[in-house]
């Protein structure tokens, strides 16, 4: 094996690829060769580093120098200065949002964004080349499978997972070990292990990052699960919208088969296990377990009533055990390090760590993995670097379309399954979207209901009809046509839908509305009674006004107004005619004196 004195790690996750990391890698390889360094320095395309905001990200080892927002034109300088002469390129080094500190000597682990994190599920993301099984093997890869197959009984494997306290990371939070136990107890000629990689929550991308950055971790865990429940076949149901993840899964499955880690007689124990990939086709409801199985069967992805539970009658009417990607990503580590190690992290009922996709109005957009029980404040301010542009925090949305919006008063809530539910939201798959004072909470509720209405499969009436009625009421409110009693109507509908919908999608769909009513009722009331949007977001409720004391009469606004609503003489204050104003906001952008405001 060749030994290199330095490694250049370039992020090849979707975020960084979107901002041009593929071109960077090519350029690095060219430049390194040009300088005769190709025997000394190796370029590696890794999975996601997590700090997508700073992408494309490049890390140079052994120093661990963290370069951010690197452009193709910067590559020459990094190669000739850092790699050739050993001088770090100070001006390209990551700069901390909060402290503005740009310290080339700080390695990754010392940066605020990473300091508070504890990576188990993401342990190999951004560390290894996901397309090379040897790198996974070098990081204890497939050791847990070997341990399980050669030294543990099936019951012991299940017991270990049960004892670890691992709960489903897809949203429900059902104890994983219990799921395995039920599936193991079913008697059938054929059983299946399935992996839910149909990550549909808007703004959540942790599963994609695991698949892109560490696909073997999922394959290994599925094989362990197969052994534990007595299944010889596995299916991964992955979104077609994740082409990089699909490609790396295909490569990983091929390599694992080649090494005899999938297929027949694994580790010469007589255990057979193989995995197939099935692509989703863009239906959010297929994240629900019974709908997902119908979809793998090639049918419309409509949920079916439970019981029978999938552990008894699932895929192709055989006992099936379905876990989410992030859940699987923890399994090998639990088998290797023991249940006690895993259970030592987290809170009483939520063990281990959780990955969150931090996004929205936050400085450090990206993926973070923290021990369960970490307060929201730590995640948003210490890791996330707070709210950009000096704006005020308003709410954090967790759990996607099934979750809720939590206000500033709840920022000290330690994040775990039960605390989030008690606070009126839920863990969901781990989306965490931060909103500032400019976001209207009624409009956010409308946004999520719009999503649910679009994605409802239409099988049961509460979800198909009920969510549409809720959306209509919300649309009325944001358009200034809200009526007294609308809030009560929304609550009534919400509670009925929660109690009667067939599957998780419908049962949780009203949550964004209920939580915003609970914490931001005054915003609903302002829309309905005063016909005002406190966040100045809802267009129908806005009026644009020119402050005569600030207006210099430069006519810039009048010239740009598409509706001809602004009049006035040169060098004299102008006025906006509200009956002609289209509320497009073009005038505000043009005004150099800050004279125009939304009210």
């Amino acid at each position: 094996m060749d030994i290199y004195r330095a490694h250049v790690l370039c992020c090849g996750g979707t975020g960084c690829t979107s901002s041009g990391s593929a071109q960077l890698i090519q350029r690095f390889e060219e430049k390194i060769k040009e300088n005769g360094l190709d025997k000394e320095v190796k370029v590696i395309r890794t999975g996601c580093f997590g700090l997508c905001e700073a992408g494309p990200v490049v890390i140079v080892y052994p120093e661990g120098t963290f370069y951010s927002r690197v452009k193709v034109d910067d590559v020459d300088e990094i190669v000739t200065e850092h790699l050739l002469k050993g001088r770090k390129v100070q001006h390209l080094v990551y700069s901390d949002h909060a402290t503005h500190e740009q310290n080339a000597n700080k390695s990754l682990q010392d940066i605020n964004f990473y300091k508070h994190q504890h990576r188990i599920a993401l342990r190999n993301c951004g560390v290894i080349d996901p397309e090379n099984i040897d790198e996974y093997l070098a990081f204890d890869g497939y050791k847990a499978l070997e341990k399980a197959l050669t030294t543990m009984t099936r019951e012991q494997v299940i017991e270990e997972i049960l004892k670890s306290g691992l709960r489903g990371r897809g949203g429900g939070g059902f104890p994983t070990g219990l799921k395995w136990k039920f599936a193991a107890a079913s008697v059938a000629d054929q059983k299946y292990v399935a992996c839910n990689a149909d990550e549909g929550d808007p703004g959540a991308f942790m599963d994609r990052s695991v698949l892109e950055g560490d696909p073997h971790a999922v394959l290994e865990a599925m094989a362990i699960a197969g052994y534990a429940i007595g299944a010889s076949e596995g299916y991964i149901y992955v979104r077609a919208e994740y082409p990089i993840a699909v490609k790396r899964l295909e490569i990983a499955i091929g390599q694992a088969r080649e090494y005899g880690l999938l297929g027949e007689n694994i580790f010469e124990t007589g255990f057979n296990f193989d995995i197939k990939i099935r692509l989703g086709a863009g239906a959010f409801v297929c994240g629900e377990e019974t709908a997902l199985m119908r979809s793998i069967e090639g049918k419309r992805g409509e949920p079916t009533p439970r019981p029978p539970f999938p552990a008894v009658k699932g895929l192709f009417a055989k006992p099936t055990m379905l876990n989410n990607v992030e859940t699987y990503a923890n399994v090998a580590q639990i088998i290797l390090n023991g249940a006690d190690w895993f259970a030592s992290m987290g809170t009483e009922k939520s063990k281990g760590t959780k990955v969150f996709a931090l996004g929205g109005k936050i400085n450090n957009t990206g993926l973070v993995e923290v021990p369960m029980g970490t307060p929201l404040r730590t995640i948003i301010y210490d890791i996330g670097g707070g709210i950009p542009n000096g704006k005020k925090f308003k709410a954090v949305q967790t759990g996607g379309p099934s979750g809720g919006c939590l206000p500033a008063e709840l920022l000290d809530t330690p994040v775990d399954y039960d605390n989030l539910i008690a606070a009126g939201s839920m863990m969901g798959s781990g989306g965490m979207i931060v909103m500032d004072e400019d976001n209207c909470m009624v409009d956010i509720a409308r946004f999520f209901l719009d999503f649910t209405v679009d994605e409802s499969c239409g099988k049961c009436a509460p979800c198909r009809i009920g969510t549409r009625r809720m959306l209509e009421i919300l649309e009325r409110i944001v358009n200034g046509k809200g009526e007294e009693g609308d809030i009560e109507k929304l609550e009534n509908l919400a509670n009925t839908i929660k109690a009667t919908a067939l599957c998780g999608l419908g049962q949780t769909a009203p949550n964004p509305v209920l939580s915003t009513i609970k914490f931001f009722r005054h915003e609903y009331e302002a829309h309905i009674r005063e016909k005002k949007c406190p966040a100045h977001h809802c267009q129908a409720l806005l009026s644009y006004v020119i402050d005569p004391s600030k207006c210099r009469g430069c006519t810039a606004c009048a010239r740009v107004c598409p509706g001809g609503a602004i009049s006035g003489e040169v060098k004299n204050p102008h006025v906006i005619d509200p009956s002609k104003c289209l509320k497009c906001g073009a005038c505000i952008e043009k005004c150099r004196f800050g004279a125009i405001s939304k009210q």
Partner: protein
Amino acid sequence: MPDNKDKYEQLNQVIAELKDQPGALMPVLQRAQGIFGCVPMDVQKIIAEGLGVTLSEVYGVATFYSQFRLEPNGKYTISVCLGTACYVKGSQKVLDRLSEELKTPVGKTSPDGLFTLNATRCLGACGLAPVMTINDEVYGRLVPDDIPGILAKYREQA
């Protein structure tokens, strides 16, 4: 057309290759869309016959999933992310501006057949929000005023 004949041959090969595996309908539809760019009725009929299922079942599946199209897309497919992270950063305004510039409602193809405008769920590039893609090209940190310039670039190419 010889070109098209070739496509139907490919489709029949796909059907022959996959028909014995369980749950073949979705993979066949996906591959068919890869060949034809969409799954129009005549293609669905061939699939139904080939797999021995009813046409209503094929149509039911093809219309259930948003990925399947019954009509072809324009030369350039524009997908604006309406995931939560993009939405709170103003992607709706980007979408509105596109719809206005193209004189095309969301989900439709522009009158000149060049652009298909879609609103899409999270693309997962939340660090670049608001994001859109035009075919495989990604555009991030957009403001509505970026739109005319970007569209002009594609119109010139076409």
